[in-house]
């Protein structure tokens, strides 16, 4: 268990080299995180891809929506049967409209919930961050053992880090 540090760089090239030096120092990939103000493809940074698991939220959302739509348009008329316009009590054609809308609403809401769940948001109390990131800086967050810390920090400074913060000791 080591302390967390956040090194800030001005551009992507510097960050790529910094990540490489962290790897050489023996820090495992899952002890490293990259925080940026705009999306940078993991392949550019040499980082592992983030798995896309949104389908496991979107699809159940669609099914739930479809079920709700079917329930309201095809089941409830049998519970409250009223003849209108000489049309049959249960018919699929007009029901398609509501079923479609409910299905779409299901996907929409499920995707929002899925985003929050997968990205682990909201994270209102997280301190591992620096405002320069939203000005375009690239932040490299890593966990490092005490003994190798000095060497790592020196190398990061040489690669152009304009600031390195001890995350757990800084103020929120």
């Amino acid at each position, binding site marked *: 268990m080591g302390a967390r540090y956040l090194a800030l760089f001005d551009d992507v090239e510097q960050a790529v080299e910094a990540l490489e030096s962290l790897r050489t120092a023996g820090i495992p990939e899952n002890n490293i995180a990259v925080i940026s103000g705009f999306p940078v493809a993991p392949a550019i940074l040499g980082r592992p891809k983030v798995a896309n698991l949104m389908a496991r939220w979107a699809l159940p959302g669609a099914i739930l929506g479809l079920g709700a739509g079917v329930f309201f348009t095809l089941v409830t008329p049998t519970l*409250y049967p*009223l*003849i*209108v*316009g*000489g*049309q*049959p009590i249960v018919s699929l054609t*007009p029901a398609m409209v509501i079923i479609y809308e409910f299905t779409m609403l299901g996907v929409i809401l499920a995707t929002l919930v899925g985003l929050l769940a997968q990205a682990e948001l909201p994270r209102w109390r997280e301190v591992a961050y620096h405002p320069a990131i939203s000005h375009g800086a690239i932040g490299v967050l890593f966990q490092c053992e005490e003994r190798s810390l000095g060497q790592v920090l020196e190398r990061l400074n040489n690669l152009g880090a304009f600031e390195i913060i001890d995350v757990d000791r800084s103020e929120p």
Partner: protein
Amino acid sequence: MSSHNESVNEHRWVMVVDVDKCTGCGACITACYAENNIPIVGEEEIQKGRHMGWVRIERYWEGEYPNIRARFLPIMCQQCGEAPCEPVCPVFATYHSATEHINIQVYNRCVGTRFCANNCPYITRVFNWYDPVFPEPLHEQLNPDVTVRSRGIMEKCTFCIQRIRQVEEDAKSEGRPIEDGEVQPACVQACPTEALVFGDLNDPNSKVARLAQSRRAFRLLEDLGTEPAVIYLKGGDAHVV
């Protein structure tokens, strides 16, 4: 006909309007106002197109002077078997009665979207643009069997369903069938020329059943497929100058 069952024991209420006998006197309109608590809206509102009458008499002039004819066409809710007004109401304030086979309007359910009014091809539906005003002593004339509607509610001819139900209940409690001509909506009762006839089409001996077979019989806007329960008779040469 329509997609619901018709058993021989049930009544299929229809109205027959004999256009050749109609003199355009307007007694039916007055009787309807009295029976169904329809408010008077005044000349100004009527000029804006807000006449509240459930039945209207359309007057058409034919020919040139001195051979002018007037035709009178009383039009009320046609109680369609496949009513276009019914499917479009979002709250089921209008639906088809399974027992009387007429179109029901539920006043206290209506939220006033007026889609049903647009969808009626006969333009027979009426909307309460304001709260009704019955200046004294007219309020003493209100029929207790019929709701007084507030603003924001749709209404229309009901074939005087309160009278239909009254007769049905009386006949049931007395253990006898309903006689032909026993049910009389207010307009039918008031018509001096018997141009309006009301009865049960399911009863083969009724007057309406006989009139429905007439070669003069037709229905309004038949090609629309609404299956109206109002049968018109026209073809004779009688006219009113």
